[in-house]
């Protein structure tokens, strides 16, 4: 038997606990749980990954990159590791490396919507808005309920002056996640700047409400 099932149960429970702490914002507790796992098994991929995510949350991007690189070395076939490594690289401004990481993630998991969305953000940042739009549409196709690609698509459309499409994408994002602050701000901002779009937007919202009724 390669992995002792009792050790696995205990480790899984610690990781689960750490993830809960991450969600709660109890960063110190999460760090302590991940470190406990890593003391037992320095190559535990989920703990390495968790430490990376934790560091990104604390804006410790370089440290995050280091943990996530280790995670991809221990578990190179896991798309999530590459996607999050891409995030740390993007946040460090290492766009080329980030693109490679996201592409590896998509290669491993072709229906991984987050990776498409994140790659689109880098591409847009590099000025390739066409590629970014294509990727975001793919992300929406993969998971139509994810609000992030809509919001990002809205930003690109607004940047390109396609206000009508931008408003509609912001609407779609907010509809899917009512507490999506960034999308709400984008939505409010574009309507404030383009009051003529306000009535159409209200009408769509009312129609949507009717259809729900």
């Amino acid at each position, binding site marked *: 038997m390669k992995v002792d099932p009792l050790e696995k*149960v205990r480790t899984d429970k610690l990781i689960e606990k750490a993830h809960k702490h991450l969600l709660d914002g109890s960063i110190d507790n999460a760090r302590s749980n991940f470190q406990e796992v890593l003391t037992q098994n320095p190559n535990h991929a989920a703990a390495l990954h968790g430490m990376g995510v934790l560091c990104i949350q604390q804006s410790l991007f370089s440290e995050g990159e280091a943990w996530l690189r280790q995670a991809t070395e221990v578990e190179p076939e896991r798309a999530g590791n590459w996607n999050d490594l891409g995030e740390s690289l993007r946040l460090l401004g290492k766009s080329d490396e980030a693109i490679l990481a996201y592409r590896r993630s998509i290669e491993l998991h072709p229906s991984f919507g987050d990776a498409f969305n994140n790659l689109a953000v880098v591409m847009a940042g590099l000025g390739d808005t066409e590629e970014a739009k294509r990727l975001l549409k793919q992300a929406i196709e993969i998971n139509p309920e994810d609000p992030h690609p809509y919001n990002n698509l809205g930003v690109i459309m607004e940047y390109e002056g396609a206000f009508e499409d931008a408003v509609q994408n912001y609407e779609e994002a907010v509809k899917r996640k009512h507490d999506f602050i960034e999308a709400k701000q984008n939505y409010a901002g574009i309507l404030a700047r383009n009051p003529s779009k306000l009535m159409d937007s209200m009408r769509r919202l009312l129609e949507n409400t009717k259809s729900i009724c």
Partner: protein
Amino acid sequence: MTPLQTAYLKKLRMTAEANAAFFELNMPSHRMLLDESPSSSVDITNQGELIIRNANGDSKPVVADILKMEGRLEKFSDLADRPQILAFHKLREVQEKPSHGHLQRYHYSNLDADFPNRVRQHFAKYFPDNTGLVPYPTFGENEIPLLIVFGSGLGWHLPRLLMEYRIRHLIVIETSVDDFRLSVFFQDYVLLSRMASERGTDMVFIVQEDVEKIARSLMAAMLKSNGLPQFLIHGAALFYALDEDELVCKIRVTIIETLWELFFGLGYFDDELITVQHSFDNLYHNFPIYLRPNIVDKDAVAFIVGSGPSLDGLIPLLRKFRDRAVIFSCGTAISILHKMEIKPDFHVEKERQQVVHDILVKSIHGDIDFLAGVNFIGLNTVHSDVFRLFERRGMIIKAADTMGAMLERSGMPQQTVLSGQPTVANTALDFALSAGFRNIYLFGVDLGSKNKEEHHSKHTVYLNMLPEEDHLKTLLSNQPDNDISVPGNFGGDISTNKVLSFARRMMEYAIVPHPDAKVYNLNDGALIEHAIPLYAEDFEAKWPVASSKASAVEAAMAAFEHKEFNLTELRQSLLGQIDDFIVQIAEIVNREQNSLSDVIDKLIAIHRLTFDTENMGKPCALLFRGTLSRLLSMAFNAVTIIRDQDEALAKAEWDFSNIVDFLNQARIEVNNKIEQISH
């Protein structure tokens, strides 16, 4: 009597009648108990009091105990308050280098020491202290693998317990025959039995006032075919339907103290591995095999000579009649016979360790010439070096033995495969009876002694024939304590130990199938039922008209014949059966497990592969049952005290994997040991 009273009485009597028919069909011994007092019945007095009236006219009121029982059921429902039998393994007693200690040199395999040690290491690693453990075994929601109920009472509690808990095995112990009789009027045992059947509960009633017999019946219930696994005794819940008095305490203590017997005789893989190698070696040497039973003249006389303390006083008798009876020397008795210059006709050995050769030679001070003319009889388990000490030799195939089972499947006649356990005197007696001797005298077969410290003849090798520094002395000094009292052959009680007590019972079983045989017990030791106690001074008066000793010896030797076995096929067959067995175990191990109940199902399923009626005689069941029982028991011990269910299931997964590893390793060792013979 009012119409209601009349109808109620009629109902009670009809219930008793139905129960009697039920017991007659299913539990004849209990029906006999009821028959002992056929006119016992319930009645209602003029004052309207419900009474039980016995055959002798005595009567006593029936006390409705339903409220009392409710209180007990409520108390029982509290797990923290529920009495349980605890039989913990020392799960943290890890050994640095597991071995058989100073006896290691006599063992062929270390797996019996190593694999349980791995279990302990694993447990100690994850549970170095009691954090994460519960103090008493738990089995999941309302699950009770084994429930022992003391008292049948009026029976209210039994259906309640059956319905409220998932009980796999229910044993009801009733110490009062009167109370049991009373219960049959009130408890519908037919319904109870159906309920048990629907709930999947195996139910056993033990109605017995004698404490020793209760313990025996309990053991029998546990060991009966398809019965409950021994490891379930750990955590067995106890329900008291009667007030806890001295007798109940005594029964409980007796049950706990005799637990060891549940594992007695199961042996170890190492024992069976030695057997496998020695048997192949003995077959390779083509020693004659016992094949022809009942060949000895019925008038022949056999003296079976053990090394018990009575032998010292019987030596003159033995010397006087030595030329008229066939003398069987059993194990270490040869040293006394050598000292007394009485040459036996046969020497018998049963022990498998190679050291038997050394002991034998040392016990006759290296006087190998003494063995000239002595015929040797050994079980197939005995090392070939011992056989080769003698010019004429014969081999008995042992029952309940891996190779015995293999050879039976290869054409050995079943009636010549003998038990021969647990002492060498049992081997000699089994053979003598089977070969046709009908006049048998037991010399020095004491099976215990009046003096607790003395259990062998003063001349025996056990006490004074070996030099102080000799390692054999250490080996032989490991004698079990004398702590059991049994009836004496000439009255009174004698002290015996667990092995000799078992030997006594096995002798009784051996004599029963030969009602025409007279087995005389000359010893001031344990009473052996079906043997005839005989004082030395009455010996000559009972002396039969004996046939020629020489012809009896020749006839006994003629019972052994050469028989060819294809050893290559035998080896392939054994290994093939081991492979199949491992596949069966792996299939059980791989079953899904989502609860502790699933784990217990698996443990029981594995146990049944070695203990079910259809399996217990199979070579692999015999080869693995001892070590498997221990590993299963340790796993059961551990998983039932781990607080977190996920951890308990994971621990079980590891333990199951350890069992499969053990079997695979054992398979390699079996193959290697047989391989050594062919080279």
